[in-house]
């Protein structure tokens, strides 16, 4: 191999072929491009011409250059160039590639894999044998053909446990002692950069047999891990650790629910020089209970995931109901106060003792009235349950065995009419108390309590005291469970505590004892079986079947390993999470003084073989050359002149369009002002020139009639482009619908719906006198209506406002008489104040209205001029309806209208005019 700067050539002799390039130059110059072949009828005329010089037009210089370049590229590609060749790899010793594939390596895995592949490919190219050794997988270590090692590398995935390098050292030693193993080899160790046990052993073992290069991950590929999250009072706290300490780095912790939804996110920042960062998330308890896992965002590694298990779930607390019920007001009942205080933090079960025990609660609440000395309660507590008791008159009268302390007979009464002592307040909680840190409300005064018998070890069992030192809450272990006694009632009879916020806070702290019952509740017998395992990239998936069970009593001490992978483990109904990262996990950077090791950083640069890309480039050039040759021979349509001209035109037009954009804006405003300041009717341009002309002429004639007859003085009508025009300026829009009308575009539909919603009116006219009433739906209308929000329609009767907004009409004729029109069935609901936004008919009104320039009607009308006049009247009514709305429905005018209608009925129809 020879090198030219960063490029080396594996087969440099091939470069000799470059000498042939000048020869090629001469050859290419001498060969003209193939002539264009034309069959030409007047060839005889052409033959009369003096021959033009036959000198072959030689190929243009740039084409020759292109072809020479192509040849040069092929020659260079054949010389097998390598970008930044690895000069150190010149020995022919076998190669050992050690890859750390624990979860620490998952973050930078693609680069690690690429680097390993580069080493193996290089070994393959040099014909060296190679072996692949994995620190987190129990794979065989064999020196074999490098291509076989490459194939094995494809199957390597990061695992969800930590690498075990000591184990690898053992396995490697075994492999090396086997027959056929080389005594010396070159080694690369693609490390994850995290120190572990056995680093030194492994490094020494390898470096004794040859060169060892330890490759450390680059800056952003350093391992990150999430330590077990701890529940805080109002959310959770997470600690994140990293292997390096340099640079600041922001990470985000997200809490994911059981359905995969992110419930909370919390940012954290590694300060420069620190290897830990903290994140805190505030989360209501009921949300917190739904968490399934906490993850580091953007880090796909098993170490960046903390699975949460039963201990995060709400404890189930049973309230024992007194036998025969409580004969008390609900608001004074002890149980009510207990339940209200516990409900936010626990799932509550109520019922008689036997019933609730079947629900397998993790805690029992026993108020005084529900005192029960059933042995099942004792059994429940001894199996690890939590019993919360409240005192009361019955307990004061007689103590029983299920108490953390012995009680004195009779209670203690503080304050009151016949008592000199003042009601006592609660003393601040001691630091060793579970209630430590809770603030005490000043209203929490104690008027009565039961008193504990002074005993030697009483202090140990007291969790809270009154200001005078007498115990208020005592607790003691009974078997594996706890008995907690509040020396007061759960209701407000004896104290003000249940009425304050301190009470639920205290109960919540007590519940923590029950929460622990989740894992512990499964007992110490049996063994945990894996349910779902975490893979190296931090995703849950089905277990592989290689896992073995964990004895119940050893679960907490079991580290993640190939046989006990992280994941969700199950024992009976209980589930527990085994996580890759434990509270004591540290990520210390790998030692830089491993015996005999050279270090390098994986910076993404590795040797690249250029032959493939070069040949591809040459093939591309060849294709280009063929296209050019075809163009020269005239076999390409429209190339190059017309095509280039088209391109140039496109560029020019593009520039021309961009340039007047500013002016267009001004005209837009003028246009909008013009439209907004003048009343004018609009018609929808159907694209059919004839129909549009009729619409225009019809509306123009109607505008003149309306001006002549009423106070409305509309300007010339205007065609409307539904896609682009702003419709809101038009009081009414006439829409002739042809049978072949196409559905409106989505944009137009939005435009129209907005127009209708904001009070516009559209008159659909199918112009055939039939559709809508008989013979099924009008095909064009049906298509047009598809995207529009047209409300329910009803036939307009003669009572409709349209029949009396200006003229009193009995029907609504156009060119065709006797057709129905349809209006919104119930327009009152819309924002239009009872005015129908849609009028659908088929009478061809525009045709009846339309007049040519000369003033003569453009089309004959069925019923003669009388009907034309009626259609104009309808048009005037329409305009009035569009502009005045429901004015004429006003009851004020009813008598006058009735009177006139009455006259009309008796007299000839002409008398209907106002």
């Amino acid at each position, binding site marked *: 191999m020879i090198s030219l700067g960063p490029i080396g050539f594996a087969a440099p002799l091939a470069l000799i072929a470059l000498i042939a390039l000048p020869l090629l130059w001469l050859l290419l110059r001498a060969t003209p491009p193939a002539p*264009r072949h034309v069959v030409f009828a007047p060839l005889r*005329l052409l033959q009369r011409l003096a021959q033009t010089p036959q000198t072959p037009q030689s190929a243009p210089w740039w084409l020759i250059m292109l072809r020479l370049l192509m040849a040069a590229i092929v020659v260079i590609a054949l010389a097998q160039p390598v970008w930044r060749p690895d000069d150190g790899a010149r020995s022919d010793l076998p190669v050992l590639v050690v890859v750390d594939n624990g979860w620490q390596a998952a973050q930078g895995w693609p680069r690690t894999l690429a680097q390993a592949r580069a080493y193996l490919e290089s070994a393959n190219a040099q014909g060296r044998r190679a072996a692949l050794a994995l620190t987190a997988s129990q794979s065989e270590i064999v020196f074999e053909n490098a291509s076989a090692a490459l194939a094995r590398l494809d199957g390597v995935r990061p695992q969800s446990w930590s690498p075990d390098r000591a184990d690898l050292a053992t396995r490697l030693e075994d492999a090396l002692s086997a027959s056929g193993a080389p005594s010396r080899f070159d080694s690369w160790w693609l490390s994850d950069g995290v120190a572990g046990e056995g680093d030194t052993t492994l490094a020494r073992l390898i470096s004794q047999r040859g060169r060892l290069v330890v490759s450390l991950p680059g800056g952003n590929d350093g391992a990150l891990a999430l330590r077990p999250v701890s529940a805080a009072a109002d959310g959770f706290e997470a600690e994140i650790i990293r292997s390096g300490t340099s640079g600041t780095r922001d990470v985000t912790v997200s809490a994911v629910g059981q359905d995969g939804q992110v419930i909370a996110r919390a940012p954290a920042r590694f300060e420069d020089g620190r290897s830990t960062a903290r994140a805190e998330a505030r989360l209501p308890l009921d949300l917190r209970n739904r968490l399934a896992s906490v993850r580091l965002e953007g880090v796909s590694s098993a170490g960046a995931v903390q699975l949460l298990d039963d201990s995060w779930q709400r404890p189930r607390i049973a309230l024992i109901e007194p036998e025969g019920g409580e004969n008390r007001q609900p608001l004074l009942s002890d149980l009510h106060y207990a339940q209200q205080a516990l409900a936010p933090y626990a799932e509550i079960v109520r019922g008689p003792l036997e019933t609730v025990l079947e629900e397998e609660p993790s805690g029992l609440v026993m108020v005084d009235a529900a005192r029960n000395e059933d042995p099942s309660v004792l059994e429940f507590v001894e199996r690890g349950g939590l019993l919360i008791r409240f005192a009361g008159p019955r307990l004061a009268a007689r103590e029983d065995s299920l108490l953390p302390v012995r009680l004195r007979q009779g209670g203690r009464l503080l304050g009151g009419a016949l008592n000199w002592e003042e009601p006592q307040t609660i003393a601040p909680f001691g630091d060793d108390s579970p209630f430590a840190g809770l603030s005490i409300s000043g209203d929490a005064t104690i008027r009565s309590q039961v008193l504990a018998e002074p005993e030697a070890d009483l202090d140990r069992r007291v969790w809270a005291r009154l200001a005078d030192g007498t115990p208020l809450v005592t607790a003691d272990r009974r078997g594996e469970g706890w008995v907690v006694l509040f020396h007061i009632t759960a209701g407000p009879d004896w104290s003000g505590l249940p009425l304050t916020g301190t009470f639920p806070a205290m109960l919540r702290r007590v519940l923590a004892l029950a929460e622990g019952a989740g894992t512990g509740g499964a007992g110490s017998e049996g063994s945990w079986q894996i349910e779902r395992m975490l893979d190296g990239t931090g995703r849950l998936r089905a277990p592989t079947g290689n896992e073995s069970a964990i004895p119940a009593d050893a679960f907490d001490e079991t580290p993640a390993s190939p046989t006990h992978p992280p994941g969700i483990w199950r024992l009976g109904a209980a589930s527990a999470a085994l996580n890759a990262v434990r509270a004591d996990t540290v990520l210390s950077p790998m030692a830089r003084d491993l015996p005999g090791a050279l270090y390098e950083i994986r910076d993404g640069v590795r040797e690249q073989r250029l032959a493939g890309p070069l040949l591809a480039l040459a093939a591309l050039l060849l294709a280009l050359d063929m296209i050019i040759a075809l163009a020269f021979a005239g076999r390409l349509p429209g190339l190059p002149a017309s095509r280039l001209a088209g391109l140039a035109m496109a560029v020019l037009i593009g520039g021309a369009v961009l340039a007047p954009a500013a002016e267009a804006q001004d005209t837009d405003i003028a246009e909008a002002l013009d439209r907004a300041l003048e009343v004018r009717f609009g018609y929808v341009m159907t694209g059919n020139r004839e129909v549009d002309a009729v619409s225009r002429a019809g509306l123009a004639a109607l505008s003149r009639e309306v001006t002549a007859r009423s106070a409305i003085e509309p300007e010339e009508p205007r065609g409307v482009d539904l896609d682009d025009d702003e419709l809101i300026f038009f009081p009414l829009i006439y829409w002739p619908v042809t049978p072949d009308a196409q559905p409106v575009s989505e944009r137009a539909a939005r435009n129209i719906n907005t127009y209708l919603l904001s009070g516009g009116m559209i008159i659909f006219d199918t112009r055939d006198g039939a559709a809508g009433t008989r013979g099924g739906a009008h095909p064009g209308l049906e298509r047009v209506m598809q995207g529009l929000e047209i409300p329910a329609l009803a036939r307009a009767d003669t009572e409709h406002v349209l029949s009396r907004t200006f003229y009193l009409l009995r029907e609504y004729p156009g060119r065709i008489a006797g057709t129905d029109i349809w209006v919104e069935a119930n327009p009152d609901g819309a924002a239009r104040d009872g005015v129908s936004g849609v009028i659908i008919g088929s009478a061809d009104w525009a045709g009846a209205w339309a007049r040519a320039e000369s003033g003569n009607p453009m089309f004959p009308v069925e019923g003669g001029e009388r009907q034309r006049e009626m259609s104009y009247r309808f048009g005037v009514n329409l305009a009035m309806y569009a502009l005045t709305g429901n004015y004429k429905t006003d009851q004020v005018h009813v008598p006058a209208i009735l009177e006139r209608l009455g006259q009309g009925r008796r007299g000839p129809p002409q008398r209907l005019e106002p």
Partner: protein
Amino acid sequence: MTIRHTQTLRRAAEHAAAPFPALLAEAERVAASVALGTHGRRRSGHGETFWEYRRHRTEDGAQAVDWRRSARGQHLFVRETEWEAANAVYLWRDGSPGMALASKGQPLKKDRAAVCLMAIAALLSRGGERITALGETGRPRAGRAGLEITARALAEGPGEARAVESADIARHARIVLASDFLDPPETWTARLARLNASGASGILLRIIDPAEEDFPFAGRTRFAAPDNAARLLFGRAEDARDAYRTVWAEHGAALAQMARQAGWTLLTHRTDRPAGPAVMALHQALAPRAMEQAR
């Protein structure tokens, strides 16, 4: 074999016939646009169309009286019909290999010639003229059948030059020859002289492909004759453009000269122009001739 062979033949026939309906349709369209505004002879004569009623004269026989009209008035009337002369028109469309060429995007010269001739045939046929394809469909025929036979021959016939050289035509027939007239003018002088000898006269419709007139070629180009008999290589075709155009103009002038001397009308039509005007010109060139003859 037979079935297979029949199928093959039939497919070939269908393939060959495919352009015919299209050509016919185009011809009909062109003819329709030209027919508007034309009329018959505009004088009374033998014909079927009513022309006028005139007063009965003594020289008219009793059988000439139109009794239906006469019964409505005091006088006798004679019903006169419009004079409609039927003449024989011979159409010929050149079928030489050069006619089967076209620039990109243009119709073949052959097809355009056929369209023009078919259109004029339809027009003539409507006017009662008898028409035929020269040298291919025998005697001139009138009516729809004549048009059908002639049109098919015009669209698909061989169009050999022999048909012109040894034409078997009625005397004083009118002839329309559509060709690119790329043969030397002398050849055509001889041919027309033969035709003139039989008292025929007519129109030369010269069909030109735009490339033949404009010579838009550039660069290294090899020109081949349509029958592939000769080839000509130009290193730079654009250098020959001016010279070619001169030659082309000379050829055109020689043709015009030849036609004038023979007393024929020469119409020139480029295939990149619509066929309508060409047919209109043809029609007009034929019409005065007819009037002249009638007198």
